[in-house]
């Protein structure tokens, strides 16, 4: 009996869990969890299929992480949620836990969390207690990496896209808006920037012609599970691809149609083919409306590593659709063919069960969607 797919829909006012049948043709939607709380990310542990974590915050009471071991029937708050060191000179306090990533397959119980402002935290007990990754949070240059308040996203800087190399539990990537992408090969003790070749249009060119080593704005970074030396990045300044052997990010978004551009939030890779990826472009011109360009939403996909891109919009609204898809709300599943899911700022979920060839609405009338994650298959 195939395991059904589950979609975890984290919204501005709660979490909903959707469950499908085996071929994803019928879905049921749960009652809301955490109604009234802002949910930023909910992720089911693929290693045990049981541990479900939800990063949320109540307007008055601040951020926390909740944990369920029974599919969301009951939840328990973390005994010690992510928090910066009391009394630290920079005076940081976690505003919200933005990102959750399960650790390496060989390290059951290990999770990572990324926060706003930018901080990295680790749990070794399945999300019950969290400790700061001091090598990152307290790095003497960290304040230079992230810049000032003027360098952050509108609702605060974020650490996201925590990636663990499937070949090596000590090899980590994190990305920050703002700050750029960083890499550790010693489980977070030391870090180095990994931004060579990434566009950084919002700052003036350096006089000596050199690149900024950090300060970039990756919106979402993914690693291909079958070829972990290939990374893709949807950046504030375009779509990039990195093959570690080449050492520099390549702006493959330059091949996107000029009238659409290559600005967006999320990016998805095909679970088997490292040359295939999907993005959801948004309008990054003028006042940066962050809506679908011209009110005509579409996904763009590449099958040749970004050398060319094709529009996919069958079934999507053809005009006057001014929503967008946030960085955590464009996800793919492990089905064959891959299912693609779009969580909209207008509270709808759209899906494609044929790798973007056509789309259909799945759920409507939800609050603004912050994040999706999908489990199963």
């Amino acid at each position, binding site marked *: 009996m195939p395991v059904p797919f589950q979609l975890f829909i984290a919204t501005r006012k709660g979490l909903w869990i959707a469950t499908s049948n085996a071929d994803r043709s019928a879905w049921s939607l749960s009652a809301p969890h955490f109604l*009234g709380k802002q949910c930023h990310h909910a992720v089911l542990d693929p290693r045990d299929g049981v541990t479900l974590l939800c990063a949320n915050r109540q307007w*008055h009471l601040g951020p926390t992480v909740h944990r369920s071991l029974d599919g969301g029937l009951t939840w328990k708050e973390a005994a010690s949620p992510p928090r910066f060191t009391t*009394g630290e000179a920079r005076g940081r306090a976690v505003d919200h836990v933005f990102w959750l990533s399960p650790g390496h397959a060989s390290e059951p119980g290990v999770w990572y969390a990324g926060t706003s402002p930018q901080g990295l935290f680790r749990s070794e007990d399945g999300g019950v207690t969290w400790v700061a990754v001091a090598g990152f949070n307290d790095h003497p240059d960290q304040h230079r990496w992230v810049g000032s308040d003027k360098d952050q996203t509108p609702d605060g800087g974020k650490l996201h896209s925590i990636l663990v190399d499937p070949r090596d539990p000590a090899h980590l990537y994190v990305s920050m808006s703002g700050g750029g992408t960083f890499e550790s090969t010693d489980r977070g003790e030391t870090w180095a920037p990994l931004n060579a070749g990434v566009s950084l249009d919002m700052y003036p060119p350096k006089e000596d012609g050199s690149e900024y080593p950090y300060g970039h704005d990756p919106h979402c970074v993914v690693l291909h599970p079958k070829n972990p030396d290939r990374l893709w990045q949807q950046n504030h300044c375009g779509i990039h691809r990195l093959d570690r052997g080449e050492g520099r990010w390549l702006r493959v978004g330059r091949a996107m149609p000029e009238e659409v551009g290559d600005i967006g939030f999320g990016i998805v890779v095909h679970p088997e083919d490292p040359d295939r990826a999907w993005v959801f472009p948004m309008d990054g011109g003028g006042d940066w409306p962050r809506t679908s360009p011209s009110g005509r939403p579409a996904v763009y996909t590449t099958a040749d590593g970004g050398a060319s891109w094709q529009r996919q919009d069958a079934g999507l609204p053809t005009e006057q659709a001014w929503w967008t898809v946030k960085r955590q709300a464009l996800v793919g599943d492990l089905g064959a063919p891959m299912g693609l899911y779009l969580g909209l700022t207008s509270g709808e979920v759209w899906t494609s069960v044929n790798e973007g060839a056509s789309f259909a609405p799945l759920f409507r009338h939800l609050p603004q969607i912050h994040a999706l994650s999908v489990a199963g298959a």
Partner: protein
Amino acid sequence: MEARVCVPTQLRVYTGGKAEVVAVGETLGALLSDLDRRYPGFRRHVVDEQDRVRRHILLYLQGEREEDLAAPVPPGAELFIIGALSGG
């Protein structure tokens, strides 16, 4: 000093639904720490990790708005914790 603490609806999940509880402490900060011992998780939702009262929480000690955790707690004090207008 023992104080009577009025708990807003948002925090009653930590007090087992009680709207009013008792805590002991010489200062406002000590009072919150005692509340946390009695009701684990309570303190961190009133103040952040830098001991700043959270943005949308108001504390009234003896009828006066208070944000200084070093503020002394007089005998028989009343602490009102209020969830300020917030949300959207």
